[in-house]
């Protein structure tokens, strides 16, 4: 096993990995940019090394600086987390060339699966269903127009190197295509350093379901159930759960087998996720493979009882999986909310700022993976994800009830956030019934919120609390005698005794 691991990331995932290292008795090394000197991950790791200025290109995305930090610290392995360099095959190769273990798949597997276009080719070659569209990146506007006309509008533009909805645009008609292509390419270039964009048929209001896989270097490959990730805004997941409601066992099994086929075809080792679109007739289409740890991995951890980050590290150290597919028996139900600094009333625009108050929930079945703390000013250079709130229950209704309770306990002030939006989702009978697809958020926001009979009372008392807080802040008047404590009065009496 490794003695020391460098974590090439920041935020909640860097904290999560530092915790796994501590659980395994491995020393952890954080890296940070100038914007992150006070960040939580720097405090949580055993060691911390400065990378450079705030822009990601000069810090978290800068391969020579990350490798120099690893060398300086004496780390034997690098965990890339998600985002930044996590799916960069050149980085994985550079680690190997520098004598470091990259905690993730091999550069060859990443190249075969890492870009969405390469993965589409691989899936097609192994009889895994895909959506019609371009197999390669779009070379010109003329080509995009021709293919879109062939397969019919609406179409989706997606960054070949993409993830998380960046560099992704839905195009409803030919007039929108030119500007959408330019914006998608610019966003892809800014986020991934690669402007390649491909085009495929858009499926309206599909469900987005993914399979977690885990493979060791000794030929063992398992799938760890699915995650339903349909609740999205701006093409980014905000709620994930496992198991998926309304999914036939036969479909789940077929998706698990397709995921394993894709992984096997790419000689995949370590943790990975195979994403599928599922249409209203429960037909599924391969989308892509995320060759890394997913943001939403805790959902799978809670239902399987496995620590995926620990398994990533153990697999990278050469350990075999010590369980078989038959022993994977998910139990209960888990659901996650991604707490973002963004304003649901302004189309979920990011809203960076200082965290003035933070009081996270706790109690039975509640887990919070956070990257922030009260008093910190969140830098605006990076992703607006603040924390993940995950609940587990013996069944879905209990997991949802616990999430409702946790959301009511959660206090976060100073930055606009989506807690209020989540409270609305978890009060929605449609959500409770499992009626979600990628159009769910837009439909919910189009509805008038249900009346809250207690709203007036709460608002009045909030105003009273604000007035009391303000009055309490004023310089204290000389304390009246009555305010003295019984102890003080007793002491005074004693002092006055002859």
């Amino acid at each position, binding site marked *: 096993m490794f003695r020391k691991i460098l974590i090439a990331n920041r935020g909640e995932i860097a904290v999560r990995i530092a915790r796994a290292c501590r659980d395994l008795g491995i020393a952890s090394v954080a890296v940070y940019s100038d914007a992150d000197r006070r960040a939580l991950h720097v405090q949580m790791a055993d060691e911390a090394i400065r990378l450079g200025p705030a822009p990601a290109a000069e810090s978290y995305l800068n391969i020579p600086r990350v490798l120099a930090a690893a060398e300086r610290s004496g780390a034997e392995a690098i965990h890339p987390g998600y985002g930044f360099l996590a799916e960069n095959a050149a980085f994985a190769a550079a680690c190997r060339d520098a004598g470091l273990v990259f905690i993730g798949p091999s550069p060859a597997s990443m190249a075969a699966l890492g870009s969405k276009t390469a993965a589409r080719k691989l899936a097609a070659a192994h009889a895994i269903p895909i959506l019609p569209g371009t197999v390669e990146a779009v070379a010109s506007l003329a080509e995009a127009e021709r293919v879109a006309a062939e397969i019919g509008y609406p179409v989706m533009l997606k960054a070949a190197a993409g993830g998380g909805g960046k560099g992704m645009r839905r195009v409803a008609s030919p007039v929108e295509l030119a500007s959408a292509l330019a914006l998608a390419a610019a966003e892809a270039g800014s986020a991934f350093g690669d402007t390649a964009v491909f085009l495929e048929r858009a499926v309206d209001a599909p469900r987005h379901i993914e399979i977690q896989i885990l493979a060791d270097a000794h030929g063992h490959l398992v799938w760890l159930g699915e995650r339903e990730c349909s609740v999205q805004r701006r093409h980014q997941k905000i709620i994930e759960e496992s198991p998926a409601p309304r999914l036939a066992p036969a479909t789940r099994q077929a998706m698990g087998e397709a995921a394993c086929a894709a992984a096997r075809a790419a000689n995949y080792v370590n943790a990975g996720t195979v994403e599928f679109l599922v249409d209203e007739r429960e037909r599924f289409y391969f989308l892509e493979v995320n060759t890394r740890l997913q943001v939403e991995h805790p959902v799978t951890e809670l239902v399987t009882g496995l620590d995926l980050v620990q398994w990533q590290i153990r697999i990278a150290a050469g350990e075999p999986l010590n369980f078989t597919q038959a022993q994977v028996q998910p139990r209960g139900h888990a659901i996650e909310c991604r707490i973002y600094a963004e304003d649901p009333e302004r189309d979920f625009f990011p809203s960076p700022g200082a965290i003035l108050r933070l009081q996270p929930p706790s109690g039975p079945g509640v887990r919070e993976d956070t990257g922030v703390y009260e008093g910190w000013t969140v830098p605006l250079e990076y992703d607006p994800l603040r924390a993940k709130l995950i609940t587990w229950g013996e069944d879905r209704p209990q997991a949802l009830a616990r999430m409702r309770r946790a959301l009511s306990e959660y206090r976060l002030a100073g930055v606009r956030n989506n807690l209020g939006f989540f409270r609305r989702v978890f009060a929605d009978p449609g959500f409770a019934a499992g009626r979600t697809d990628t159009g769910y958020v837009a439909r919910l926001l189009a509805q008038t919120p249900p009346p809250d009979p207690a709203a007036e009372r709460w608002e009045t008392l909030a105003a009273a609390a604000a007035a009391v807080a303000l*009055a309490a802040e004023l310089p204290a008047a000389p304390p009246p005698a009555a305010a003295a404590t019984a102890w003080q009065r007793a002491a005074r009496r004693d002092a006055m005794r002859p």
Partner: protein
Amino acid sequence: MIVAVQIGERTRQLEVVPSDSGWRLQLDGEPLPADAAVIRPGLISLLLDGQSFTFTWARDGQGAVWLSGGGRDWQAEVRDPRQLQARRHAEPEGRARLTAPMAGKVVKLLAELGAAVEPGQGVLVLEAMKMQNEVRSPKRGTLKTLAVAAGDTVATHQLLAEIE
């Protein structure tokens, strides 16, 4: 002390007087029989008719007050009543001010100074946290002021442009 607390469109007047056991409250001239306690700075407990209401509060750099309690959030302005009125009169009328919805970087200008703009038309593209977003004009008019240029970094609520 009397303060006006504005939440949304509604302003309430609250009188707060220290008492032996904590604070005595009046709401819009009527007694509010709540038992108020400041647990610690930023955490206030109110007991009313045997029910427990707990609030966190904080004030940001712009003076806005953030309140949370019972799974609800509010943003309030807490002021002396005269101040509040003066502020309302000082607001400009008759033109649209485009301000930055978030801190970020101006990537591109989509309209020129003096150009006619339509409601919903993009005026500029703002990038924050790796997302590019169009900032659109809320009304029809002429782009009278352009307060920023491509490449500028802007703070939340900073003036971007004025339409008349």
